[in-house]
């Protein structure tokens, strides 16, 4: 009898083991925090989609973990004259279906990337400077631009190279995996919308061979559920650890945390150009004669009234760094002279008095409540600090679906927003956030405060045509200095991103917040 039940138990265990195989050594399951909406690398310029595309495809130029440019499918590139860039391609690279890669695939890619039907945000942004693609030989390509364009290598680091066979493929073809054929470190095995993505290793990859034969990305958008999945061992790694969980995971001996400062700055945008600002009144609620936010002294006072270290410490649980400009130090085009404004409430009051507002005024701070890490709480803290300095500040937080539409219509006077620099250098925020709004030039598209300084515009314009990296970095840094000295925006902090993983795994944390399976390694020698 005893023997019988023992054998039953063994059978049950065997069945259980068969049904739930322990994750094999060369498999990893990663919990992602945002939905991948398509496996088409050119359909929607959206971080989670780009994150997946990086696994399956290569770009001519890759970005390292600090968003510096490194060779991808191109080994080298240089500007041969003012309007021509020449790229030398890597030889012997094969697509997942075995077909060889050469210049013709670049031509096909550049035809498709800007023209995907129904794209809610297209990659034309990065290809529009290119007027002509000239194939010199199968491994040499020249790009002609209408005007000198220094950022072409940066732009091309966002364009995933597809096979010429997929030039006219539809988004659905990519979602089913039919044409999702790249040269990248992984092949797409399965893509289930809003549930999971499964990748298998490309054993013929030209670069570093990944540690994982099979990678499963589970889409777990709820922060607590993602942490729970890691704690329960259902996933081996998660991205975007929420701030309340950081300390807890740090204390857990079975887990390791990796973090890197991101390219995302959280800042206040101010209505600094209109004579009347809709949400600024005197303390009794009556309209003011003029818009105080137009006065640089008022803007500087507001910046000094904010205790950035306190926000970083209390609200962000340390997962942020106080900001004094558009990107953290070490990034391309930042100024070494710009430091975060010191917390100086007395100085702030004095500046306000000088500007003619000894009693302050009243303003509403608008903020999204579902877009950035702790966005609404940050807005509340900022409002209290401004109120202490004499500027009565009310917070109105709303879902980003409403926030961005209203902000773009210039309905707000003071708003909390964030900016991630996709290109990893300061021309991105300078051009979009601070340059004068100009539809024809395509500048200032996200300049919701309509800050404008011709001197800064000129510096940025010059930088964009300056191919020499050192000179360009200097021009961009100068432009940053002009904008920050004008307090065109009030930077608050740079977000720090956290990845949590099982002990024994290591990750190369990235400034672009991407979670790349080929950078996850089993730690060697312990």
């Amino acid at each position, binding site marked *: 009898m005893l023997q019988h039940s023992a054998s039953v138990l063994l059978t049950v265990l065997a069945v259980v083991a068969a049904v739930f195989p322990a994750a094999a050594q060369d498999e990893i399951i990663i919990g992602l925090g945002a939905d991948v909406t*398509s496996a088409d690398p050119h359909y929607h310029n959206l971080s989670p989609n780009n994150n997946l595309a990086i696994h399956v495809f290569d770009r001519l130029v890759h970005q390292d973990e600090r968003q510096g440019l490194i060779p991808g499918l191109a080994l080298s590139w240089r500007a041969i004259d003012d309007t021509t860039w020449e790229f030398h391609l890597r030889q012997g690279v094969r697509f997942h279906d075995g077909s060889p890669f050469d210049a013709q695939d670049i031509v096909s890619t550049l035809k498709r990337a800007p023209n995907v039907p129904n*794209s*809610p945000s297209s990659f034309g942004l990065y290809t529009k400077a290119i007027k002509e693609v000239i194939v010199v030989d199968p491994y040499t390509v020249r790009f002609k631009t209408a005007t000198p364009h220094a950022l072409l290598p940066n732009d091309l680091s966002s364009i995933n190279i597809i096979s010429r066979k997929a030039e006219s493929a539809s988004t659905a073809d990519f979602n089913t995996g039919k044409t999702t054929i790249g040269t990248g470190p992984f092949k797409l095995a399965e893509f289930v919308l809003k549930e999971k993505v499964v990748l298998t290793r490309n054993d013929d990859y030209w670069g570093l061979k990944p540690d994982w034969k099979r990678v499963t990305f589970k889409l*777990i958008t709820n922060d607590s559920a993602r942490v*729970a999945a890691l704690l*329960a061992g*259902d996933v081996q790694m998660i991205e975007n650890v929420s701030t309340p969980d950081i300390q807890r995971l740090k204390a857990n001996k079975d887990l390791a945390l990796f973090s890197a400062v991101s390219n995302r700055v959280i800042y206040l945008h101010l209505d600094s150009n209109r004579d009347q600002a809709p949400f600024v009144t005197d303390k009794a609620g009556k309209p003011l004669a003029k818009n105080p936010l137009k006065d640089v002294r008022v803007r500087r006072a507001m910046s000094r009234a904010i205790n950035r270290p306190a926000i970083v410490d209390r609200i962000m649980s340390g997962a942020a760094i106080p900001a004094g400009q558009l990107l953290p130090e070490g990034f391309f085009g930042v100024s070494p002279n710009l430091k975060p404004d010191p917390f100086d409430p007395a100085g702030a009051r004095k500046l306000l008095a000088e500007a003619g507002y000894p009693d302050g005024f009243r303003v509403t701070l608008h903020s999204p409540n579902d877009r950035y890490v702790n966005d609404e709480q940050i807005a509340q803290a900022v409002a209290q600090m401004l109120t202490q300095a004499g500027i009565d500040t009310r917070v109105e937080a709303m879902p980003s679906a409403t926030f961005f539409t209203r902000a*773009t219509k210039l309905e707000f006077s003071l708003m909390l927003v964030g900016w991630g620099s996709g290109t990893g250098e300061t021309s991105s925020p300078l051009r979009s956030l601070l340059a004068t709004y100009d539809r024809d030039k395509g500048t200032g598209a996200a300049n919701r405060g309509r800050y404008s300084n011709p001197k800064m515009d000129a510096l940025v314009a010059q930088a964009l045509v300056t191919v020499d990296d050192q000179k360009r970095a200097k021009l961009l840094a100068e432009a940053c200095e002009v904008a920050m000295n004008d307090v065109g925006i009030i930077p608050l902090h740079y977000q720090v991103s956290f990845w949590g993983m099982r002990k024994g795994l290591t990750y190369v944390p990235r400034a672009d917040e991407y979670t790349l399976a080929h950078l996850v390694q089993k730690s060697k020698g312990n």
Partner: protein
Amino acid sequence: MTVFLIRRLLQSIVVLFVMSLIVFVGVFAIGNPVDILISPEADQAERERAIRALGLDLPLHQQYLVFLRKAVTGNLGESFVFSESALGLILKRMPATLELALAAMVLAVALGVPLGMWAGLYPDAASSRTIMAGSILGFSLPTFWVGLMLIMVFAVMLGWLPSTGRGQTGTVWGITSSFFTVDGLRHLVLPAFNLALFRIALIIRLTRAGARETLLQDFVKYARAKGLCERRVIFVHVFKNILIPVVTVLGLEFGGVMAFAVVTETIFAWPGMGKLLVDSFNHLDRPVIVAYLLLMVCMFIAINFLVDVLYSVLDPRVRLVTRGT
């Protein structure tokens, strides 16, 4: 019966029409989808291109007419976010939600009715008081908190059950579902229980109240006087009468569970339709929102119809025929 059906059908069409109009205007009032979907680095020209690509450059009434023209041919439009047919997107995710809802309702009935009967038949017993106190907890604890606690206890601390996601599915008689594999069932237990908790409490209270009320009625006394055994009195006469409110609520709740299982689906990363709806709202993915709500209206209409039919079976006083007036 035919008149009843036709009237129901006409009512339904009006409801669908009004619903689509409300959603259209509502989503328009919330914001512009392009502002959410477009890359922040896009310039003005790219923004205008995207607005045209999604058909948002037309005035609202023309957008609605375009929608209506397509809708009568059965095409509810393509998702802004996924570039796939909105209806297809929803239907693909329906089985996952359906099985979750079904599991939750089965749990609710299997636990709620017997416990409620017990509490109704023996209202003063300590066990009954415990059941009723428990049902108050089931009512008042927020779903997301219970869900996280379930994960903490059963997945993280005890490690008995998986924390998130849908497990393997099996196919029996052409139906693909988690019900047919052990892994699938293991993944289903926690979310189904989380979703069921509120309904269990609800059904306990309904059943108890029904039992208490029915036991005092004349026909029960008469049945007892006739000398029927207690078991027959309770399980046939009392039980049938209790079921009427329970069926009504079950019908409505089943619809609610199907349509709005979103909290549970989000916490357990369950790939169902509820999560799709909320994400669609966040992205202002209007075609999906419209298609979803229209589908739900159809479902509620169907459920209500079924409930009406069930009434007539359970309660001889209810007739579906409208008597000639």
